[in-house]
C-alpha cells in the first residue's frame, strides 16, 4: 500500500497545455473512458437544466415562464441529450474503461478507432447544441430542435420545420451514432479476442456479457436509425418524398424505423446498468452471483426479444389488431428474462453479509425503482390500457422510473464503486449516503405524481394546463422534488471533485472484490497489467486470495 502515491504527483511538473495535449491525442481506453463519463456528466447537467425549466413552467396552471415553442425545444433537447449524449456515452465510456481491465487485456482491440469514436460523440454533441446558435438558418426561424426526441414525421418536413434546427438534430445524432457503432465494434472485438488466458466465455464478469449484448444491439439498431435519418436528410435537402404524405410518403414508416432503433436503444441504456448491479451486488453481499448461467441466458434472451417489441410504442397509430396483439405478447414475454434477473440479484443478496456502502445503496435503490418502472411497463403493454394512457404523463413517469431509477441509479452506484480504481482515492461514504437518500426522495417526489396526473388525463408535451382539473397538486409536488434531486446530484459532483484530492487512499482492492480490474494498481498503469493475468474461474481474484479453496474446484 505504501507504494501508492497521490494520483497526479508524478505529472504535476508538466504545464496545463502539455497535460491537455496528452488527453487530446490519447488512444488509452482508460483516459477515453474518463473523458466519456465527464463529457456525459456535463451533458447530464445541461439536460437536467432543460428538465428544470420544464418543471418550473408546469409548477402552476397557465404559467408563462416558457413560450409554447420554447417548451417544445426544452423537451426535445432534454430527451435527445439524455438518451444520446448522457446515457450512451456514460455507459459506453464505463465499458471502455472497465472491459479491458475486466477481461485482463492491455487495451481495446482497436485503440485508435476507439479514440475516433469518442471524438465523433463529442462533435455530435457540440453540433446538437450549436443549434441554439445556428439553427435559425437563412429563415430566421428555428433555434434548437423542437420536434420531440423521436422526431415524428411530418413535423420534421421542410414545410413544418423551417430553418436548420431539425438538420442539426439529424446530424448531431447521426455523427454520435457513428461513434457508438465504432465503440460497439471495439467492445465485441475486445471481449471476444482479447480475453486473458483461461477466461472462457462463461468465466467472464457478467458486465462483459451485458456489454456483448449491448454491442450487438447497437450494431442492429443504430444503422437502421442512420438509414432513417439519411432518408430524412434526403427529404429535407434533396426534395425526396420518403416521409412526405402529399406524395404518398408514410409517417408510419418513420415510426417503424425509429422505434426499431428506439426500443433496442432502451435496452442499450439499461443492460450496462444491469452489468454494474451484477458486479456490485455480489461484492457487497459477500456471495457469488446467484445463477450466473441463467443471468447470461436472460441477457441474451432480452437482447433477442428486444428486437421484436418496437411497435408497442405505436399502439395508438392504428396498426392491425393482430399486429398489436403480437407486439403486446412479445412485450409481456420480455418481462420474463428481466424478472429472472431481478430474482437472481435478490437471490444473491439473500442470506449474504450485506454491507450498505454507497454503491450497494444505489444498487438496492435501483432494484426497487426499476421494479416499479418495469411493472408500469407491463401495464402499458396492455393495448387498451395504452389506448387510454398513451402520450400521457403516466408514460413519462414509467420511463423515468426505468431510465432514471434504473440506469442513472446504476451509473451513480458504479461511479462510487469504481471511482477508487480510476483515481486511487475513495469517495466519501457519508456524503454518498446523503446523496443517495436525497436522490431517492427527490426522484420519487418528481416522478411518482406523474402517474396520477397521467391517469387524470394530463397529456405529455403540453406547455401548460387548465386549473380546476385536479392536476395542480401533482404538478406542484413534481416541481418541489426538483431542488431535492439537484441537491443530490450536486452533492455527488462535489464528492467527486473533493475526493480527487482529499479522499482516503484506496489501495488496489478497497472493496475486497473478485474481478480482474482490482488486481492492478489504482489508478492502473498505462499498460493495465505488468503481467497479463491468468484465470481459472469466474472469480480470479478470489482464487488469488484463497489459493487453498479456489472457485475452480467447483466449476
Amino acid at each position, binding site marked *: 500500500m505504501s507504494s501508492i502515491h497521490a494520483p497526479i504527483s508524478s505529472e504535476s511538473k508538466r504545464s496545463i497545455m502539455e497535460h491537455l495535449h496528452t488527453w487530446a491525442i490519447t488512444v488509452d481506453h482508460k483516459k477515453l473512458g474518463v473523458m466519456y463519463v465527464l463529457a456525459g456528466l456535463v451533458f447530464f447537467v445541461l439536460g437536467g437544466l432543460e428538465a428544470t425549466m420544464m418543471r418550473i413552467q408546469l409548477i402552476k396552471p397557465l404559467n408563462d415562464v416558457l413560450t409554447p415553442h420554447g417548451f417544445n425545444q426544452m423537451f426535445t433537447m432534454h430527451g435527445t441529450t439524455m438518451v444520446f449524449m448522457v446515457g450512451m456515452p456514460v455507459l459506453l465510456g464505463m465499458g471502455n474503461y472497465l472491459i479491458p481491465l475486466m477481461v485482463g487485456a492491455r487495451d481495446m482491440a482497436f485503440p485508435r478507432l476507439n479514440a475516433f469514436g469518442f471524438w465523433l460523440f463529442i462533435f455530435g454533441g457540440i453540433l446538437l447544441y450549436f443549434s441554439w446558435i445556428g439553427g435559425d438558418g437563412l429563415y430566421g426561424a428555428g433555434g434548437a430542435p423542437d420536434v420531440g426526441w423521436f422526431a415524428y414525421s411530418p413535423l420534421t418536413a421542410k414545410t413544418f420545420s423551417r430553418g436548420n434546427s431539425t438538420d442539426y438534430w439529424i446530424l448531431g445524432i447521426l455523427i454520435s451514432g457513428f461513434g457508438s457503432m465504432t465503440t460497439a465494434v471495439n467492445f465485441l472485438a475486445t471481449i471476444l479476442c482479447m480475453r486473458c488466458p483461461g477466461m472462457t466465455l462463461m468465466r467472464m464478469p457478467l458486465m462483459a456479457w451485458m456489454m456483448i449484448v449491448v454491442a450487438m444491439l447497437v450494431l442492429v439498431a443504430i444503422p437502421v436509425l442512420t*438509414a432513417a435519418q439519411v432518408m430524412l436528410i434526403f427529404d429535407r435537402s434533396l426534395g425526396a418524398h420518403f416521409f412526405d404524405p402529399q406524395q404518398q410518403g408514410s409517417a408510419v414508416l418513420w415510426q417503424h*424505423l425509429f422505434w426499431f432503433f428506439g426500443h433496442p436503444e432502451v435496452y442499450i441504456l439499461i443492460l450496462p446498468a444491469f452489468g454494474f448491479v451484477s458486479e456490485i451486488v455480489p461484492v457487497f453481499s459477500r456471495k457469488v452471483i446467484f445463477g450466473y448461467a441463467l443471468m447470461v441466458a436472460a441477457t441474451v434472451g432480452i437482447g433477442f426479444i428486444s428486437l421484436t417489441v418496437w411497435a408497442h410504442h405505436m399502439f395508438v397509430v392504428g396498426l392491425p389488431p393482430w399486429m398489436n396483439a403480437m407486439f403486446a405478447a412479445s412485450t409481456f414475454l420480455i418481462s420474463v428474462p428481466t424478472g429472472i434477473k431481478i430474482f437472481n440479484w435478490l437471490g444473491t443478496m439473500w442470506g449474504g453479509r450485506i454491507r450498505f456502502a454507497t454503491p450497494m445503496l444505489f444498487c438496492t435503490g435501483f432494484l426497487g425503482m426499476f421494479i416499479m418502472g418495469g411493472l408500469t411497463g407491463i401495464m402499458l403493454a396492455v393495448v387498451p390500457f395504452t389506448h387510454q394512457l398513451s402520450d400521457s404523463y403516466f408514460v413519462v413517469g414509467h420511463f423515468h422510473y426505468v431510465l432514471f431509477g434504473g440506469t442513472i441509479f446504476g451509473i451513480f452506484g458504479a461511479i462510487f464503486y469504481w471511482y477508487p480504481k480510476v483515481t486511487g482515492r475513495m469517495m466519501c461514504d457519508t456524503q454518498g449516503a446523503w446523496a443517495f437518500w436525497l436522490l431517492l426522495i427527490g426522484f420519487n417526489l418528481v416522478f411518482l405524481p406523474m402517474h396520477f396526473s397521467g391517469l387524470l388525463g394530463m397529456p405529455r408535451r403540453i406547455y401548460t394546463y387548465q386549473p380546476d382539473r385536479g392536476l395542480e397538486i401533482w404538478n406542484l409536488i413534481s416541481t418541489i422534488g426538483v431542488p431535492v434531486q439537484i441537491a443530490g446530484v450536486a452533492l455527488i459532483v462535489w464528492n467527486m471533485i473533493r475526493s480527487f484530492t482529499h479522499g482516503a487512499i484506496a489501495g488496489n482492492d478497497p472493496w475486497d472484490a473478485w474481478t480482474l480490474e482490482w488486481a492492478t494498481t489504482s489508478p492502473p498503469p498505462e499498460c493495465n497489467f505488468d503481467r497479463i493475468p491468468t484465470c481459472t474461474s469466474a472469480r480470479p481474484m478470489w482464487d488469488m486470495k484463497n489459493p487453498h479453496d479456489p472457485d475452480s474446484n467447483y466449476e
Partner: protein
Amino acid sequence: MSLLADNTEIWRPARGKVGMASLIFIESLFFSGFIVAYLFYIGKSANGPFPREVLDVKPVLVNSAALLSSSFTVVAAVRALSQGTMHAMRFWLLLTIALGAYFIYGTLAEWRGLIWEKHLTISTNLFGSTFYSLIGFHAFHVCVGLLALSTILILGVLGRLQPKRDAIRFELISWYWHFVDVVWIFVFTTVYIVGMRA
C-alpha cells in the same frame, strides 16, 4: 498461480475478422432500412414515371454478371497472394477492379438515361426517392470497395505486399467485396424483380 496455470487454453477469434464481420453486419442493417423502404413504397408513387415504364433489366443483367463474377476473381487474387505468386495476384486483382468499374459504368449509363431521357429524379416521386437512394448507396459501397482494392493493387505493383503478413488483410477486404456482391443480389431482387410489378 502456478498451481492453477493448467487448462487456460481458450477460444479467441482474430480481432480483424471480428471487426470486419461487425462492419458487414452494420452495413447489412443499413441496407435493410432502404430495402424495407423500397418494398414498403412499391406501387405507391402518386405520379409517374413508374418502374415498369422506365427500368430496363437487360443491361442490368450484364452489369450484375460482371459484379458477381468479380467475387470469383477476388478469391483467385487472395489465393494467389497467400501462395506468393504476385503476378497472378496482380492479374486477378486488376480483373476484379475492371469488373467492378464496369459495374459502376453501367450504373452511370442507366442513371444518365433515367435522368435525362425518362426525367426521373430523386424528387420526382416515391419510386425515384427509393430507387436512387438504394441503388446509389450500393454503388457508393462498390466505389469504396474499388478504392480499397486499388490501394492493394498499387501496393502490389510497388512490391510492398508480403504474402505472410498481408494475405489475411487482403482476405478481410475481400470479405467486404463479397458483401457488396451479396447486397446487390438483394437489391436486384427488390428493384428489378419484385419492384417491376408496379
